[in-house]
């Protein structure tokens, strides 16, 4: 009997992870068909314009500027997608009632949410890889030959991707209980404040008022510390993050995303769909 139950449990776990992947693949398909990846065209245009402009300049700083420009644009385009697609992931399904038929299938709400999240993460991954390849090619083009920087920028690109995963999770969490506009605004605040994590920490010890100090401390611990991922400037100077900080960033991303999704699932599982 107990054997039976364990078999049943394990197959349902396998089945449930398949469902998550199916939902993720469908979310990816939606992003592609809704032309989310068209932002790549804009990115390539920007990069080409930059490269041509730098060709005129040629002050020995071209590689630095092209990396700075390329990776910053990658982050901003990525954040834009993470926020605007992220806040609509669940909201649109509720509003259009497309999730009625889906949740009437043997699928848990947590699985649905996780699948949606992974689908957008996949979209962002494709986006980031294509953009990264664009920057590498631009470097080779400017140098009129091989440049080791074309490889050395990839750890920094990886960290940018991790930051986007966090932002996606934040957008998804907000959208489980608030409107898309408000969720987008809040996520944008988290993105900005997250880059000033160090300042929050110092404010939490230097502020005059106790209440203010507590607020700053709470924000410091609650909001993601996005400075972990800020390696664009060092990357532009040709240095890539060391192994230790990469491992730290990976661990931080995993833990923080799990917490975000757990809270989002908790809220989403209690919702009544109008």
């Amino acid at each position: 009997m107990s054997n039976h139950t364990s078999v049943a449990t394990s197959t349902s776990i396998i089945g449930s992870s398949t469902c998550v992947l199916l939902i993720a693949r469908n979310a990816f398909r939606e992003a592609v068909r809704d032309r989310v990846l068209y932002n790549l065209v804009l990115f390539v245009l920007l990069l080409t314009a930059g490269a041509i402009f730098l060709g005129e300049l040629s002050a020995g700083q071209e590689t630095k500027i092209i990396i700075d420009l390329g990776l910053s644009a990658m982050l901003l385009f990525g954040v834009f997608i993470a926020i605007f697609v992220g806040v609509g992931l669940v909201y649109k399904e509720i509003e259009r009632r497309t999730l009625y038929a889906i949740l009437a299938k043997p699928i848990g709400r947590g699985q649905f949410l996780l699948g949606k999240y992974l689908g957008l993460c996949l979209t962002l991954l494709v986006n980031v890889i294509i953009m990264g390849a664009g920057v590498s090619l631009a470097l080779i083009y400017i140098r009129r030959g091989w440049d080791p920087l074309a490889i050395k920028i990839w750890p920094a690109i990886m960290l940018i991707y991790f930051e986007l995963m966090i932002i996606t999770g934040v957008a998804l969490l907000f959208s489980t209980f608030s409107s898309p506009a408000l969720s987008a605004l809040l996520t944008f605040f988290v993105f900005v404040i997250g880059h000033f994590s160090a300042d929050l920490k110092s404010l939490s010890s230097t502020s005059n008022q106790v209440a203010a100090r507590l607020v700053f401390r709470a924000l410091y611990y609650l909001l993601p510390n996005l400075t972990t991922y800020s390696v664009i400037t060092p990357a532009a100077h040709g240095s890539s993050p060391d192994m230790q900080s990469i491992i730290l960033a990976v661990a931080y991303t995993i833990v923080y995303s799990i917490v975000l999704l757990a809270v989002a699932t908790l809220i989403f599982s209690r919702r009544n769909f109008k």
Partner: protein
Amino acid sequence: MPVIEINNLTKDYEVGFWRKQKVRALDGLSLTVQPHQIFGFLGANGAGKTTTLKLLMRLIFPTAGSARILDRDISDVSMHARIGYLPESPYFYDYLTAREFLNYCGELFGLDTSVRNARTEELLTRVNLDQKSWDRQLRKFSKGMLQRVGLAQALVNDPEIVFLDEPMSGLDPVGRREVRDLIAALRDEGKTVFMCSHILSDIEVLCDSVAILKGGRVARSGSLEELRAQETNAIEIIATGADSSALKQVLSAKAEVTSTPSGIRIEVADEKDVDSVIAALRKIGGKLVSVQPVRQSLEDLFV
């Protein structure tokens, strides 16, 4: 052994933004549905039909009460593998084609590729969706076409119970007939169908048993014959050429006499009184126009 058991199900909606008020949409609903039959859930707009189905599908949560489907509590969503659901005015992913959407649904039920492809084509044929539309994106579909896709997706897993919320809405008369035939065929295959409707004629020709919902409660339930038996046996007699007050005196308690532009209308509660009314009528020189049963339709029961 019932396949659906609803026990005292109650749902309050919160409305209003600032001052939240509770609106009771379902008020202690209890009913059971037996297997292998078509169960009609009938009620006017706003009676609570959609609310009931959303509660059963776990899209909203009850304020009180419980329900079981196929002997499992509705909170156990693994039971969804054995049921199908057509939402009210359904809308599906508009970036998918009909074929892709059905395939996706099949995947979510864990069907193998070959089964899925065959099932998809079989169902799209079965709901009479024009083959030219199979590979078109759903954003280009009319309401009636979406309704057909909705029916097909509710049947992808060959379910034991199918829940249909207003399955005929958005369809033209031919479409209604086709869907009616489809639902009857589902019963013949041994499935249980739980269908909501606010249109009596849709239910009347199909359902083995019916519950009439009024203000979130079951007003009547039973088989159609049982409900019909509860209808009045009253007979209406129309006559002319007689004085209605004289007639009233003669008949007194036996019948209700009213004068209408087309003559005198006499309503008796039972058929056995008809003869005496006609005899009385003759006596005072009246002329018989018609004798017919009073049709209080089921419709009167829920509006």
